[in-house]
């Protein structure tokens, strides 16, 4: 395997093809347009289908139609476009159909701006559209991880018959980094996604199948919700992923830490550099990085919090006005002091800015 230098958006497109995705429906929006731009060229080369829909609303409903046929498919957009898809995603989740949605987050609210942000955390992790449903949310922090998570996204979508959202930000989409595509092209078998007993298609004498989200009987709809709830509980029990950075494998800093940062995606990388800087000054900080934003790794985070020495604090850093920090507080259950630093509008905190906040919290002198 050789490394290639690719933009995050293009790498995501290639990763989708390698995962066996042959159907893309989307509508352009900065900062993710290189995904459809890449796929419009790439998909026909592998016998795939690319459709530029007339809107995001159409895109997500095309995804629902294809997924209902048992076809591996995806769409991608950025924040305002993802908002437009909310109704469709609710229907897809209700119908228990698998699909992958990429949100290359940009700054909001409203039309906002085109620069990176993490302010769609609530939207992604709290169900997005109407009704009691959840999507699985994966948050890469490098181009390589974005590629790796695309295969996982399709696997999870098909295992649980549920929408999976890959939630990155404009910086990961626009940045070029070296990537390796693991394994052979077509990491997953194409379009054999367990559609055997539910997907629509030619009946060929079998029993009629219905993909539906309308349940007019309250008891039936209650049953349906209980079934979905059981699925989400199962996902929460099995599929959390995270990274702990700082305490392990760090000969100089030793194993312990007095401050635990929590950040995801691009912000986590910035925190890593800040942690390297302050550890060189003898300050013991570590980072907990959720890779699955939903299911959120509550138990793992709580363990990492319990390992903070003394009455040390937790420091949540986000490119938002404070969204994941609510989950961090839920994990802490009042056992730790939670500090927060956030920016919005496409302003990305620098490592120096984060390092300075760490010094302040730890009562150290400014560098």
């Amino acid at each position, binding site marked *: 395997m050789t*490394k290639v*230098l690719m933009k995050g958006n293009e790498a995501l497109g290639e990763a989708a093809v390698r995962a066996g995705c042959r159907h893309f429906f989307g509508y352009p929006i900065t900062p993710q347009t290189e995904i459809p731009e890449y796929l419009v060229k790439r998909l026909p080369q592998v016998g795939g289908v690319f459709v530029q829909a007339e809107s995001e609303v159409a895109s997500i409903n095309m995804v629902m139609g294809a997924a209902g046929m048992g076809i591996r498919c995806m769409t991608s957009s950025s924040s305002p476009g993802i908002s437009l898809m909310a109704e469709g995603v609710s229907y897809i989740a209700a119908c228990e159909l698998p699909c992958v949605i990429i949100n290359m987050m940009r700054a909001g609210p409203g039309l906002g701006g*085109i620069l990176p942000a993490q302010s769609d955390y609530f939207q992604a992790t709290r169900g997005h559209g109407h009704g009691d449903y959840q999507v699985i949310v994966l948050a890469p922090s490098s181009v390589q991880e974005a590629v790796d998570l695309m295969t996982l996204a399709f696997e999870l979508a098909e295992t649980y018959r549920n929408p999976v959202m890959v939630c990155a930000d404009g910086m990961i989409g626009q940045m070029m980094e070296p990537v390796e595509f693991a394994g052979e092209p077509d990491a997953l078998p194409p379009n054999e996604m367990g559609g055997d007993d539910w997907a629509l298609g030619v009946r060929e004498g079998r029993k009629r199948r219905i993909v539906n989200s309308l349940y007019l009987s309250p008891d039936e709809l209650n049953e349906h919700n209980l079934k979905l709830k059981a699925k989400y509980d199962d996902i929460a029990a099995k599929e959390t992923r995270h990274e702990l950075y700082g305490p392990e494998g760090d000969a100089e800093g030793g194993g312990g830490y007095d401050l635990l940062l929590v950040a995801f995606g691009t912000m986590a990388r910035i925190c890593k550099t800040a942690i*390297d800087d302050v550890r060189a000054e003898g300050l013991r900080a570590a980072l907990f990085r959720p890779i699955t934003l939903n299911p959120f790794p509550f138990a793992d985070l709580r363990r990492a919090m319990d390992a903070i020495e003394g009455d040390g604090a937790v420091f949540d850093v986000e490119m938002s006005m404070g969204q994941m920090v609510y989950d961090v507080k839920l994990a802490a259950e009042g056992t730790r002091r939670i500090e927060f630093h956030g920016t919005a509008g496409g302003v990305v905190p620098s490592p120096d800015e984060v390092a300075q906040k760490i010094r302040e919290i730890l009562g150290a002198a400014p560098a």
Partner: protein
Amino acid sequence: MSKATDVLMAGFGGQGMLLAGKLLAHAAMNDGREVSWLPSYGPEMRGGTANVIVCVSPEPIGSPLITTHAALVVMNLPSLEKFEGRVRPGGVIVVNSSLVERDPARDDCVVVTVNARRVAKEAGSDRAQNLVMLGAYVGASDVIPPASIEKAIENEFSGKKARFVPGSIAAFRAGVEIGRAAAATV
């Protein structure tokens, strides 16, 4: 040559700074180093700057976004005005004197002034001003062996674009000489 470093390359849109940065990132990756190439993609007024930050390191890159830089390469005055204060002491500043009429105000950096237009023309490739600038940076900073960049140029300009290779490499080499000479006089 193996320690972590970075450069901010900036100019008007179309002056080729993003491509110059890509060649550097590509070459460093092929030399087995970790790299990141982070372009500005935000709204910018006409005549403003298009810029890219390239990080090169033996270790995985933490934050690709940094606010102070080991080196700065600028094609135009707005870029110099905006970014010269961000270069760390002892860093390298490469300025295109065919468009920038003043010297950088920094006396704690290695300053390389290059008339990119003239040097590129003399090398036989008007369009390769960005590669003159990249060469001057490589020559002054020793960030990567020039041969690695030349290989990246050959990879970048393939097929119909292969005709640009000789002029591009000549322009790049002319830049390297200027960069080396400037660094040697410090």
